[in-house]
């Protein structure tokens, strides 16, 4: 099983990295022929950076849209960041000081992450409009994240796993050597869910993470009168006649 997971993790990592790089290259390489920022929009690069930061860190637009979705969504994402940072302890030796410092917060974040996810799922199940627009994959994605959070919390609060061995396993993977992985059912569920999440990232709606940075309505400067903006394919039309 240790070997199986080693293969799974290598493949999933490869899919995640190559898939994301490919996507990002496609987004970056696709022209934006017209200026379409949603106005009022900043007129300077600094202003755009600020707008994007507010969007990515505070979910500004979602805040305007719906306080429930914003609250639950932000809680989930902020918690996820803390949880991910907490997990750095499995990949660093010696563990960096600040990673050690946030360990307890990371545990609470696991709980708030689960809470946020359940709230979002309840919304998807019980609000008529949101239920209407949900596809099976929308539900399964939440279920997958809930499985990750719940199994992680269970190893903390219900059935401990040998975290020293888990760390040894991942340290090994980082140096291309397969160490023994504890054979706990919950750990297997946890790791398997993570592998699936990594693998589907570049082909699913999780692309909203890189996508937001390439969204022309948010990342364009509002200066169309001051500077001529023209895509290569559009410029070509000018030489044709």
């Amino acid at each position, binding site marked *: 099983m240790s070997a199986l997971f080693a293969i799974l993790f290598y493949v999933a990592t490869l899919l995640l990295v190559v898939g994301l790089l490919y996507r990002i290259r496609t987004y970056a390489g*696709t022209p934006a022929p017209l200026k379409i920022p949603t106005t009022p929009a900043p007129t300077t690069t600094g202003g755009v950076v600020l707008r994007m930061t507010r969007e990515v860190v505070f979910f500004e637009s979602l805040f305007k849209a719906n306080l429930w979705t914003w609250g639950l969504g932000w809680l989930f994402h902020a918690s996820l960041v803390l949880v991910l940072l907490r997990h750095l302890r499995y990949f660093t030796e010696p563990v960096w000081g600040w990673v050690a410092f946030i360990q307890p917060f990371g545990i609470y974040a696991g709980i708030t992450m689960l809470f946020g996810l359940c709230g979002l799922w309840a919304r998807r199940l019980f609000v008529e409009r949101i239920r209407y627009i949900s596809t099976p994959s929308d539900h399964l994605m939440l279920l997958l994240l809930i499985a990750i959070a719940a199994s992680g919390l269970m190893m903390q609060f219900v059935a401990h796993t040998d975290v020293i061995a888990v760390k040894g396993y991942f340290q090994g993977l980082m140096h291309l050597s397969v160490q023994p992985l504890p054979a706990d059912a919950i750990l297997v569920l946890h790791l398997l869910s993570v592998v699936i999440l990594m693998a589907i990232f570049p082909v699913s709606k999780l692309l909203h993470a890189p996508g937001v940075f390439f969204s022309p309505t948010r990342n364009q400067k509002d200066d169309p009168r001051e500077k001529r903006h023209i895509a290569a394919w559009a410029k070509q039309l000018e030489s044709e006649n």
Partner: protein
Amino acid sequence: MADITAPAYRIIPIIPALKPGAMEGKGPFVASDKINEAIGFPGQLVEDWHDRAIAKMGELLGKYRSLKVFMDACVHCGACSDKCHYFIGTQDPKNMPVARQDLMRSVYRRYFTLPGKVFPKLVGARDLTREVLDEWHNYFHQCSECRRCSVFCPYGIDTAEVTMAAREILDTVGYGQKYSNEIIGKVHKIGNNLGLPGPALKDTLEGLEEDVKEATGIDVRFPIDVKGAEVLLITPSADFFAEPHIDSLIGYAKVFHATGTSWTLSSMSSEAGNFGMFIGNYEQLRKIALRIRQAALELGVKRIVVGECGHAWRVAYSFWNTLSGVGEGADPNDQFAQMLQKQLDHRYRQPSHICEFTWDMIEQGALSFDREANDKHIITFHDSCNVARGSSMGGYPGGQFDIPRNIIKAVANNFVEMAPNTTREQTFCCGGGGGLLTDDLLDLRVKGALPRMEVLQQVADEHGVNFMATICAICKAQFTKVMPIYGFDRKMVGGVHQLVSNAIKLGDK
């Protein structure tokens, strides 16, 4: 038409329950062979529409980053789901912005993504069938491209971009919309959306000079095709004869007169509107915009000013520099743009909105007003969607909200705002924008006006508002038509420059 009634106001504007299928089969007329062929589209639905549509979609995904990112990024969070005026008015779930996008996204997933190819049901992917194509024609013509949903989307997904792409694909396979395509044909043939030929236009302008002379005793000119004039005014053709539009045209002329500005209209390019944007076709958008460039070059004007028209101002402000070089800041080697930009006077913003022009003049003290002339009006201002969310004024974010309001306050004493979640960037479309201002969509237009009518009723009841000013030809035409159905007087709607016209003092300066 007799059976079209206004929907009831919501007691507290709550989110309506879904009525699936409420607007099925309520789409617009399909363009005829003649209309389509006149602008280079196949006359009717082509044999191999399926393959051509998918090929076009692939092409657009490679040409427009917006479409590519927007197809991938949506997480179905529902932030936009209650923001569309057509959803609020019709309760048809396919009029929720996310559901409208999904009509295309489901096809995108099926043909362009791995999970959609392998597990279509799981990710909501669908084959492009004739039923799906019909659904596109129906629901992508129930979107006014107003961008309200894009304000609220955490990824900035703009349904207008998706609607434009869908309409572009429909046109490619010969399944376009009658109203928009017919109008585009008229612009190319005659020079304006209304099909008003040059001689008729000149007659109208002479008539206006006489009317103003009679009313004020002053010779206010409405010049046309004057070479060497300083300002070229590009205004929606509705301004030449429709009510209340014409009163704003008189207002612009009076402002030019009072400030001693030499100006001209162009008979060749007598249209600010650009329906090329509505159908999402870059070539049409560009071709229509080039008429303005040509007029500017031929007449040798130094400035280009745009009249009260919402989508025209979006095209002028955001796209003209790209499409036709009207603007500044082109590369020195960019001969196409430099040719025009060298001619224009860059002490002024190119192009300028008529409101920017008038407000500059007010700030410089070049205009004076008798505000009491507007005392019969208690005024509110309806922000037009394309001005609010697709353009700006005054060179700073939000100028598009302040400047028209500043003008109103300078020329009138009574001004009241409508509810804040329905104005400025959160304004509601009038219900007739985006190429939907046609009688075959009247039912949709009436329903789409609901959120605006609700808050207008509010200020009418609480503050006695009896005039709603706006700076868009489509808003004016739409409200004139639907407001009586809601029990308002059609004369309640008018332009900002109509108010300017009422109050401006001529002959003082």
